[in-house]
Protein backbone atom coordinates (compact mmCIF):
# COMPACT_ATOMS: atom_id res chain seq x y z
CA UNK A 1 0.00 0.00 0.00
CA UNK A 2 2.82 2.38 0.95
CA UNK A 3 4.58 1.59 -2.34
CA UNK A 4 1.41 2.36 -4.30
CA UNK A 5 0.94 5.67 -2.47
CA UNK A 6 4.56 6.63 -3.15
CA UNK A 7 4.11 5.80 -6.85
CA UNK A 8 0.86 7.80 -6.95
CA UNK A 9 2.63 10.75 -5.30
CA UNK A 10 5.43 10.59 -7.88
CA UNK A 11 2.92 10.39 -10.71
CA UNK A 12 1.03 13.35 -9.21
CA UNK A 13 4.18 15.49 -9.09
CA UNK A 14 4.96 14.63 -12.71
CA UNK A 15 1.40 15.47 -13.72
CA UNK A 16 2.06 19.12 -12.84
CA UNK A 17 4.41 19.13 -15.86
CA UNK A 18 2.23 16.97 -18.10
CA UNK A 19 2.14 19.65 -20.83
CA UNK A 20 5.88 20.32 -20.64
CA UNK A 21 6.57 18.67 -24.01
CA UNK A 22 3.35 19.75 -25.72
CA UNK A 23 3.64 19.20 -29.47
CA UNK A 24 1.42 18.80 -32.51
CA UNK A 25 2.39 15.15 -33.07
CA UNK A 26 1.52 13.46 -29.77
CA UNK A 27 0.05 16.48 -27.95
CA UNK A 28 0.32 15.58 -24.23
CA UNK A 29 1.43 12.01 -25.00
CA UNK A 30 5.06 12.28 -23.90
CA UNK A 31 4.07 14.04 -20.66
CA UNK A 32 1.43 11.38 -19.97
CA UNK A 33 4.04 8.67 -20.49
CA UNK A 34 6.40 10.40 -18.05
CA UNK A 35 3.63 10.76 -15.44
CA UNK A 36 2.47 7.16 -15.82
CA UNK A 37 5.94 5.60 -15.60
CA UNK A 38 6.21 5.51 -11.75
CA UNK A 39 2.95 3.54 -11.62
CA UNK A 40 4.32 0.92 -14.03
CA UNK A 41 7.62 0.15 -12.28
CA UNK A 42 6.37 -2.94 -10.50
CA UNK A 43 5.13 -4.60 -13.70
CA UNK A 44 6.91 -7.77 -14.77
CA UNK A 45 10.03 -7.38 -16.93
CA UNK A 46 8.42 -8.14 -20.26
CA UNK A 47 5.47 -5.85 -19.61
CA UNK A 48 7.14 -2.70 -18.24
CA UNK A 49 8.75 -1.22 -21.37
CA UNK A 50 5.82 -1.89 -23.74
CA UNK A 51 3.53 -0.23 -21.14
CA UNK A 52 5.82 2.81 -20.90
CA UNK A 53 5.86 3.07 -24.71
CA UNK A 54 2.04 2.89 -24.84
CA UNK A 55 1.81 5.58 -22.17
CA UNK A 56 3.69 8.02 -24.43
CA UNK A 57 1.37 7.59 -27.44
CA UNK A 58 -0.91 10.40 -28.63
CA UNK A 59 -3.09 11.87 -25.91
CA UNK A 60 -4.95 15.13 -25.49
CA UNK A 61 -7.34 16.34 -22.81
CA UNK A 62 -7.65 18.94 -20.11
CA UNK A 63 -4.33 18.95 -18.18
CA UNK A 64 -5.95 18.87 -14.73
CA UNK A 65 -7.96 15.75 -15.57
CA UNK A 66 -5.20 13.89 -17.42
CA UNK A 67 -4.46 12.03 -14.18
CA UNK A 68 -7.70 10.12 -14.68
CA UNK A 69 -6.34 8.60 -17.90
CA UNK A 70 -2.89 8.09 -16.36
CA UNK A 71 -4.32 6.22 -13.37
CA UNK A 72 -6.83 4.23 -15.42
CA UNK A 73 -4.26 3.15 -18.03
CA UNK A 74 -1.74 2.16 -15.34
CA UNK A 75 -4.37 0.16 -13.45
CA UNK A 76 -5.43 -1.54 -16.70
CA UNK A 77 -1.78 -2.51 -17.35
CA UNK A 78 -1.62 -4.04 -13.86
CA UNK A 79 -4.91 -5.85 -14.38
CA UNK A 80 -3.49 -7.46 -17.52
CA UNK A 81 -5.83 -5.75 -20.01
CA UNK A 82 -4.98 -6.32 -23.67
CA UNK A 83 -2.79 -3.58 -25.27
CA UNK A 84 -5.44 -2.64 -27.83
CA UNK A 85 -8.03 -2.32 -25.04
CA UNK A 86 -5.73 0.11 -23.21
CA UNK A 87 -5.18 2.11 -26.41
CA UNK A 88 -8.96 2.27 -26.93
CA UNK A 89 -9.46 3.36 -23.32
CA UNK A 90 -7.01 6.25 -23.77
CA UNK A 91 -8.61 7.28 -27.06
CA UNK A 92 -12.08 7.15 -25.52
CA UNK A 93 -11.04 9.39 -22.62
CA UNK A 94 -9.56 12.24 -24.70
CA UNK A 95 -12.88 13.86 -25.67
CA UNK A 96 -14.82 13.55 -22.40
CA UNK A 97 -11.91 14.66 -20.21
CA UNK A 98 -11.21 17.62 -22.48
CA UNK A 99 -14.83 18.68 -22.59
CA UNK A 100 -15.42 18.24 -18.86
CA UNK A 101 -12.21 20.06 -17.91
CA UNK A 102 -12.91 22.94 -20.25
CA UNK A 103 -16.39 23.45 -18.81
CA UNK A 104 -15.34 22.91 -15.22
CA UNK A 105 -12.07 24.88 -15.16
CA UNK A 106 -11.46 27.09 -18.22
CA UNK A 107 -15.10 28.19 -18.53
CA UNK A 108 -16.05 27.86 -14.86
CA UNK A 109 -13.70 27.85 -11.88
CA UNK A 110 -11.01 30.08 -13.42
CA UNK A 111 -13.15 32.92 -14.89
CA UNK A 112 -15.44 32.78 -11.82
CA UNK A 113 -12.54 33.47 -9.44
CA UNK A 114 -10.89 35.87 -11.87
CA UNK A 115 -14.14 37.88 -12.10
CA UNK A 116 -14.47 38.00 -8.32
CA UNK A 117 -10.83 39.11 -8.04
CA UNK A 118 -11.22 41.90 -10.60
CA UNK A 119 -14.34 43.12 -8.80
CA UNK A 120 -12.52 43.01 -5.46
CA UNK A 121 -9.56 44.98 -6.88
CA UNK A 122 -11.95 47.57 -8.32
CA UNK A 123 -13.53 47.87 -4.86
CA UNK A 124 -10.13 48.52 -3.30
CA UNK A 125 -9.08 45.10 -1.97
CA UNK A 126 -5.65 45.43 -3.63
CA UNK A 127 -3.06 42.67 -3.63
CA UNK A 128 -4.93 40.68 -0.96
CA UNK A 129 -7.57 39.84 -3.58
CA UNK A 130 -4.84 38.47 -5.85
CA UNK A 131 -3.35 36.40 -3.00
CA UNK A 132 -6.79 35.00 -2.18
CA UNK A 133 -7.34 34.17 -5.87
CA UNK A 134 -4.09 32.18 -6.01
CA UNK A 135 -4.83 30.24 -2.82
CA UNK A 136 -8.48 29.43 -3.51
CA UNK A 137 -7.89 28.60 -7.18
CA UNK A 138 -5.08 26.21 -6.36
CA UNK A 139 -7.03 24.43 -3.62
CA UNK A 140 -9.50 23.48 -6.35
CA UNK A 141 -6.75 22.84 -8.89
CA UNK A 142 -4.68 20.46 -6.76
CA UNK A 143 -7.77 18.71 -5.37
CA UNK A 144 -9.03 18.06 -8.90
CA UNK A 145 -5.69 16.70 -10.10
CA UNK A 146 -5.38 14.39 -7.06
CA UNK A 147 -8.98 13.18 -7.29
CA UNK A 148 -8.53 12.45 -11.02
CA UNK A 149 -5.39 10.38 -10.50
CA UNK A 150 -6.86 8.44 -7.56
CA UNK A 151 -10.16 7.82 -9.37
CA UNK A 152 -8.36 6.59 -12.48
CA UNK A 153 -6.22 4.24 -10.42
CA UNK A 154 -9.27 2.99 -8.48
CA UNK A 155 -11.57 2.33 -11.41
CA UNK A 156 -9.16 1.28 -14.20
CA UNK A 157 -11.08 0.35 -17.34
CA UNK A 158 -14.38 1.24 -15.58
CA UNK A 159 -13.21 4.85 -15.27
CA UNK A 160 -16.36 6.22 -16.93
CA UNK A 161 -18.06 5.66 -13.53
CA UNK A 162 -15.82 8.37 -12.06
CA UNK A 163 -16.78 10.82 -14.78
CA UNK A 164 -20.39 10.64 -13.58
CA UNK A 165 -19.45 11.54 -10.01
CA UNK A 166 -22.29 13.71 -8.60
CA UNK A 167 -19.88 16.36 -7.29
CA UNK A 168 -18.50 16.89 -10.81
CA UNK A 169 -22.01 17.14 -12.27
CA UNK A 170 -23.11 19.58 -9.55
CA UNK A 171 -19.95 21.70 -9.82
CA UNK A 172 -20.29 21.98 -13.60
CA UNK A 173 -23.95 22.99 -13.25
CA UNK A 174 -23.21 25.62 -10.59
CA UNK A 175 -19.99 27.13 -11.93
CA UNK A 176 -21.42 28.30 -15.26
CA UNK A 177 -24.05 30.64 -13.74
CA UNK A 178 -21.66 31.68 -10.94
CA UNK A 179 -19.02 32.59 -13.54
CA UNK A 180 -21.58 34.54 -15.59
CA UNK A 181 -22.71 36.53 -12.55
CA UNK A 182 -19.18 37.22 -11.24
CA UNK A 183 -17.75 38.41 -14.54
CA UNK A 184 -20.91 40.35 -15.35
CA UNK A 185 -20.62 42.22 -12.03
CA UNK A 186 -16.89 42.75 -12.50
CA UNK A 187 -17.17 44.47 -15.91
CA UNK A 188 -18.80 47.79 -14.84
CA UNK A 189 -16.78 47.93 -11.62
CA UNK A 190 -13.59 47.38 -13.60
CA UNK A 191 -14.59 49.99 -16.19
CA UNK A 192 -15.03 52.55 -13.38
CA UNK A 193 -11.73 51.52 -11.76
CA UNK A 194 -9.70 51.78 -14.99
CA UNK A 195 -11.31 55.04 -16.12
CA UNK A 196 -10.72 56.70 -12.73
CA UNK A 197 -7.86 58.94 -13.95
CA UNK A 198 -9.67 59.99 -17.17
CA UNK A 199 -11.35 63.38 -17.78
CA UNK A 200 -15.02 63.44 -18.74
CA UNK A 201 -14.29 63.71 -22.52
CA UNK A 202 -11.97 60.71 -22.26
CA UNK A 203 -14.70 58.71 -20.48
CA UNK A 204 -17.12 59.47 -23.30
CA UNK A 205 -14.47 58.39 -25.82
CA UNK A 206 -13.87 55.24 -23.76
CA UNK A 207 -17.57 54.30 -23.84
CA UNK A 208 -17.79 54.88 -27.61
CA UNK A 209 -14.60 52.96 -28.46
CA UNK A 210 -15.53 50.10 -26.09
CA UNK A 211 -19.02 49.79 -27.62
CA UNK A 212 -17.68 49.82 -31.19
CA UNK A 213 -14.93 47.35 -30.31
CA UNK A 214 -17.45 45.03 -28.68
CA UNK A 215 -19.64 45.10 -31.77
CA UNK A 216 -16.63 44.46 -33.99
CA UNK A 217 -15.57 41.47 -31.89
CA UNK A 218 -19.11 40.05 -31.85
CA UNK A 219 -19.78 40.51 -35.56
CA UNK A 220 -16.34 39.84 -37.02
CA UNK A 221 -14.99 37.38 -34.49
CA UNK A 222 -13.83 35.24 -37.42
CA UNK A 223 -11.35 37.95 -38.46
CA UNK A 224 -10.67 39.83 -35.25
CA UNK A 225 -9.53 38.97 -31.78
CA UNK A 226 -8.87 41.14 -28.73
CA UNK A 227 -5.14 41.41 -29.38
CA UNK A 228 -5.41 42.39 -33.05
CA UNK A 229 -8.13 44.91 -32.32
CA UNK A 230 -6.25 46.39 -29.36
CA UNK A 231 -3.06 46.71 -31.41
CA UNK A 232 -4.92 48.26 -34.34
CA UNK A 233 -6.85 50.82 -32.27
CA UNK A 234 -3.76 51.62 -30.18
CA UNK A 235 -1.77 52.24 -33.38
CA UNK A 236 -4.46 54.65 -34.62
CA UNK A 237 -4.55 56.41 -31.22
CA UNK A 238 -0.76 56.63 -31.22
CA UNK A 239 -0.63 58.21 -34.69
CA UNK A 240 -3.36 60.72 -33.76
CA UNK A 241 -1.54 61.48 -30.52
CA UNK A 242 1.74 62.09 -32.34
CA UNK A 243 0.32 64.45 -34.97
CA UNK A 244 -2.27 66.24 -32.77
CA UNK A 245 -0.44 68.31 -30.16
Amino acid sequence: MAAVNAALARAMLRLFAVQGSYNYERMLGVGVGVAEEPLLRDLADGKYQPAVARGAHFFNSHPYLTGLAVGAAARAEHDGAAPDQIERLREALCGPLGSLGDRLVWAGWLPFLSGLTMAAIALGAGWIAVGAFLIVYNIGHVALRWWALKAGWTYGTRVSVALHHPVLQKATALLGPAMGFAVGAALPLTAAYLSGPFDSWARVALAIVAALSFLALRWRGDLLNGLRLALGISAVALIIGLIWP
Partner: protein
Amino acid sequence: MNLPLEILIALLVWGTLVGVDLVSLPQMMIARPLVAGTIAGAILGDIPTGLKLGVVFELLQYDILPVGAVRYPEYGPATVAAVATAHASSGVLGLGLGALVGLVTGLLGGVTINVLRRVNSRIVHAAALTLESGEPKALVRLHVGALLRDALRAALVTSVGLVLAWLARPLLGVVLSERGAVLLAVAVVATALAAGAAGTLRLVGRGPTLAWFAAGLGAGIVATIWLR
Protein backbone atom coordinates in the same frame (compact mmCIF):
# COMPACT_ATOMS: atom_id res chain seq x y z
CA MET B 1 13.20 52.96 -17.77
CA ASN B 2 16.35 52.97 -15.67
CA LEU B 3 16.15 50.18 -13.15
CA PRO B 4 18.85 48.67 -10.92
CA LEU B 5 20.31 45.43 -12.25
CA GLU B 6 18.86 43.34 -9.41
CA ILE B 7 15.35 44.59 -10.19
CA LEU B 8 15.80 43.78 -13.88
CA ILE B 9 17.03 40.28 -13.00
CA ALA B 10 14.09 39.78 -10.64
CA LEU B 11 11.66 40.86 -13.40
CA LEU B 12 13.38 38.53 -15.88
CA VAL B 13 13.17 35.58 -13.48
CA TRP B 14 9.54 36.37 -12.67
CA GLY B 15 8.62 36.73 -16.35
CA THR B 16 10.30 33.39 -17.08
CA LEU B 17 8.42 31.61 -14.27
CA VAL B 18 5.20 33.17 -15.48
CA GLY B 19 5.89 32.10 -19.08
CA VAL B 20 6.61 28.50 -18.04
CA ASP B 21 3.49 28.37 -15.86
CA LEU B 22 1.20 29.16 -18.79
CA VAL B 23 1.44 25.71 -20.36
CA SER B 24 4.34 23.66 -19.01
CA LEU B 25 4.69 23.76 -15.25
CA PRO B 26 2.73 23.85 -12.93
CA GLN B 27 -0.24 25.80 -14.36
CA MET B 28 -1.01 27.33 -10.95
CA MET B 29 -2.10 30.53 -12.71
CA ILE B 30 0.80 32.79 -11.84
CA ALA B 31 0.68 33.29 -15.63
CA ARG B 32 -2.66 35.03 -15.15
CA PRO B 33 -2.11 38.78 -15.75
CA LEU B 34 -3.71 39.65 -12.40
CA VAL B 35 -0.99 37.68 -10.60
CA ALA B 36 1.89 38.41 -13.01
CA GLY B 37 1.17 42.15 -12.88
CA THR B 38 0.75 42.37 -9.12
CA ILE B 39 4.04 40.57 -8.38
CA ALA B 40 5.85 42.60 -11.06
CA GLY B 41 4.46 45.71 -9.36
CA ALA B 42 5.67 44.43 -5.98
CA ILE B 43 9.16 43.85 -7.43
CA LEU B 44 9.15 47.45 -8.64
CA GLY B 45 7.66 48.76 -5.38
CA ASP B 46 4.58 49.89 -7.31
CA ILE B 47 1.72 47.47 -6.64
CA PRO B 48 -1.08 49.87 -7.79
CA THR B 49 0.44 50.02 -11.30
CA GLY B 50 0.80 46.23 -11.30
CA LEU B 51 -2.84 45.80 -10.33
CA LYS B 52 -4.06 48.24 -12.97
CA LEU B 53 -2.11 46.68 -15.86
CA GLY B 54 -2.98 43.25 -14.48
CA VAL B 55 -6.68 44.05 -14.77
CA VAL B 56 -6.27 45.41 -18.34
CA PHE B 57 -4.54 42.23 -19.54
CA GLU B 58 -6.84 39.98 -17.50
CA LEU B 59 -9.75 41.42 -19.47
CA LEU B 60 -7.92 40.72 -22.72
CA GLN B 61 -7.27 37.18 -21.49
CA TYR B 62 -11.04 36.54 -21.49
CA ASP B 63 -10.82 36.62 -25.27
CA ILE B 64 -8.93 33.31 -25.09
CA LEU B 65 -10.25 29.86 -24.28
CA PRO B 66 -7.13 27.65 -24.26
CA VAL B 67 -8.79 24.49 -25.58
CA GLY B 68 -7.06 21.88 -27.70
CA ALA B 69 -4.12 23.18 -29.67
CA VAL B 70 -5.58 26.67 -30.14
CA ARG B 71 -3.06 29.49 -30.72
CA TYR B 72 -3.22 32.43 -28.37
CA PRO B 73 -1.20 35.46 -27.27
CA GLU B 74 0.88 35.11 -24.13
CA TYR B 75 -0.17 37.80 -21.66
CA GLY B 76 1.89 36.74 -18.61
CA PRO B 77 5.40 37.98 -19.53
CA ALA B 78 3.61 40.71 -21.51
CA THR B 79 2.05 42.02 -18.30
CA VAL B 80 5.46 41.99 -16.58
CA ALA B 81 6.91 44.12 -19.41
CA ALA B 82 3.84 46.37 -19.37
CA VAL B 83 4.19 47.05 -15.64
CA ALA B 84 7.92 47.80 -16.05
CA THR B 85 7.03 50.32 -18.78
CA ALA B 86 4.20 51.93 -16.84
CA HIS B 87 6.32 52.25 -13.70
CA ALA B 88 8.73 54.51 -15.60
CA SER B 89 5.99 56.90 -16.75
CA SER B 90 3.43 58.20 -14.35
CA GLY B 91 -0.36 58.26 -14.69
CA VAL B 92 -2.26 57.86 -17.93
CA LEU B 93 0.90 57.93 -20.07
CA GLY B 94 2.21 54.92 -18.15
CA LEU B 95 -1.05 53.03 -18.59
CA GLY B 96 -1.13 53.59 -22.37
CA LEU B 97 2.56 52.98 -23.06
CA GLY B 98 2.64 49.99 -20.72
CA ALA B 99 -0.33 48.36 -22.38
CA LEU B 100 1.14 49.00 -25.85
CA VAL B 101 4.44 47.35 -24.89
CA GLY B 102 2.48 44.48 -23.32
CA LEU B 103 0.38 43.95 -26.44
CA VAL B 104 3.46 43.68 -28.67
CA THR B 105 5.15 41.35 -26.17
CA GLY B 106 1.98 39.24 -25.96
CA LEU B 107 1.91 38.89 -29.73
CA LEU B 108 5.56 37.82 -29.77
CA GLY B 109 4.95 35.36 -26.92
CA GLY B 110 2.11 33.71 -28.85
CA VAL B 111 4.31 33.31 -31.94
CA THR B 112 7.11 31.71 -29.90
CA ILE B 113 4.70 29.20 -28.31
CA ASN B 114 3.68 28.04 -31.77
CA VAL B 115 7.33 27.82 -32.90
CA LEU B 116 8.25 25.83 -29.79
CA ARG B 117 5.43 23.35 -30.39
CA ARG B 118 6.65 22.83 -33.96
CA VAL B 119 10.21 22.29 -32.75
CA ASN B 120 8.94 19.81 -30.13
CA SER B 121 6.94 18.01 -32.83
CA ARG B 122 10.06 17.54 -34.95
CA ILE B 123 12.08 16.28 -32.01
CA VAL B 124 9.35 13.86 -30.94
CA HIS B 125 8.96 12.66 -34.53
CA ALA B 126 12.71 12.06 -34.81
CA ALA B 127 12.69 10.17 -31.49
CA ALA B 128 9.75 7.92 -32.44
CA LEU B 129 11.81 4.71 -32.44
CA THR B 130 13.37 5.48 -29.06
CA LEU B 131 9.94 6.26 -27.63
CA GLU B 132 8.56 2.97 -28.98
CA SER B 133 11.35 1.11 -27.20
CA GLY B 134 9.78 2.17 -23.88
CA GLU B 135 13.11 3.28 -22.45
CA PRO B 136 12.06 5.51 -19.52
CA LYS B 137 15.28 7.53 -19.36
CA ALA B 138 14.93 8.56 -23.01
CA LEU B 139 11.31 9.53 -22.40
CA VAL B 140 12.18 11.68 -19.38
CA ARG B 141 15.14 13.25 -21.22
CA LEU B 142 12.87 14.26 -24.11
CA HIS B 143 10.33 15.74 -21.70
CA VAL B 144 12.85 17.66 -19.60
CA GLY B 145 14.51 18.98 -22.78
CA ALA B 146 11.18 20.41 -23.90
CA LEU B 147 10.60 21.97 -20.47
CA LEU B 148 14.00 23.67 -20.64
CA ARG B 149 13.27 24.95 -24.15
CA ASP B 150 10.05 26.49 -22.84
CA ALA B 151 11.95 28.17 -20.00
CA LEU B 152 14.42 29.56 -22.54
CA ARG B 153 11.54 30.76 -24.70
CA ALA B 154 9.85 32.48 -21.75
CA ALA B 155 13.12 34.16 -20.75
CA LEU B 156 13.61 35.38 -24.31
CA VAL B 157 10.08 36.80 -24.53
CA THR B 158 10.47 38.55 -21.17
CA SER B 159 13.86 39.96 -22.22
CA VAL B 160 12.43 41.39 -25.43
CA GLY B 161 9.52 42.82 -23.44
CA LEU B 162 11.91 44.52 -21.01
CA VAL B 163 13.96 45.94 -23.90
CA LEU B 164 10.74 47.35 -25.39
CA ALA B 165 9.92 48.78 -21.96
CA TRP B 166 13.33 50.43 -21.87
CA LEU B 167 12.82 51.91 -25.37
CA ALA B 168 9.19 53.01 -24.95
CA ARG B 169 9.68 56.16 -22.92
CA PRO B 170 12.57 57.75 -24.90
CA LEU B 171 11.00 56.83 -28.25
CA LEU B 172 7.31 57.51 -27.60
CA GLY B 173 6.86 58.99 -24.14
CA VAL B 174 8.70 62.22 -24.88
CA VAL B 175 7.02 62.93 -28.23
CA LEU B 176 3.49 62.02 -27.25
CA SER B 177 1.29 64.96 -26.23
CA GLU B 178 -0.84 64.79 -23.09
CA ARG B 179 -3.92 64.34 -25.24
CA GLY B 180 -2.13 61.62 -27.19
CA ALA B 181 -1.27 59.78 -24.00
CA VAL B 182 -4.92 59.87 -22.91
CA LEU B 183 -6.07 58.66 -26.35
CA LEU B 184 -3.66 55.73 -26.18
CA ALA B 185 -4.85 54.78 -22.70
CA VAL B 186 -8.50 55.09 -23.78
CA ALA B 187 -7.82 52.84 -26.79
CA VAL B 188 -6.28 50.01 -24.77
CA VAL B 189 -8.72 50.18 -21.85
CA ALA B 190 -11.72 50.30 -24.22
CA THR B 191 -10.58 47.32 -26.29
CA ALA B 192 -9.72 45.39 -23.13
CA LEU B 193 -13.24 45.97 -21.76
CA ALA B 194 -14.75 45.00 -25.11
CA ALA B 195 -12.61 41.85 -25.32
CA GLY B 196 -13.56 40.95 -21.75
CA ALA B 197 -17.27 41.37 -22.46
CA ALA B 198 -17.20 39.60 -25.84
CA GLY B 199 -15.08 36.73 -24.49
CA THR B 200 -17.38 36.23 -21.50
CA LEU B 201 -20.44 36.20 -23.73
CA ARG B 202 -18.81 33.44 -25.79
CA LEU B 203 -18.35 31.41 -22.61
CA VAL B 204 -21.85 32.17 -21.38
CA GLY B 205 -23.62 31.24 -24.64
CA ARG B 206 -27.36 31.61 -25.05
CA GLY B 207 -28.54 29.31 -22.26
CA PRO B 208 -29.69 30.18 -18.72
CA THR B 209 -26.18 31.39 -17.82
CA LEU B 210 -26.89 34.43 -19.99
CA ALA B 211 -29.55 35.52 -17.48
CA TRP B 212 -27.00 35.20 -14.67
CA PHE B 213 -24.53 37.27 -16.68
CA ALA B 214 -27.21 39.97 -17.19
CA ALA B 215 -28.03 39.89 -13.47
CA GLY B 216 -24.34 40.26 -12.61
CA LEU B 217 -23.98 43.12 -15.06
CA GLY B 218 -26.98 44.86 -13.47
CA ALA B 219 -25.60 44.34 -9.97
CA GLY B 220 -22.21 45.70 -11.09
CA ILE B 221 -23.79 48.80 -12.61
CA VAL B 222 -25.84 49.45 -9.45
CA ALA B 223 -22.76 49.00 -7.26
CA THR B 224 -20.71 51.32 -9.49
CA ILE B 225 -23.35 54.09 -9.34
CA TRP B 226 -23.85 53.62 -5.60
CA LEU B 227 -20.12 53.88 -4.90
CA ARG B 228 -19.59 57.11 -6.90
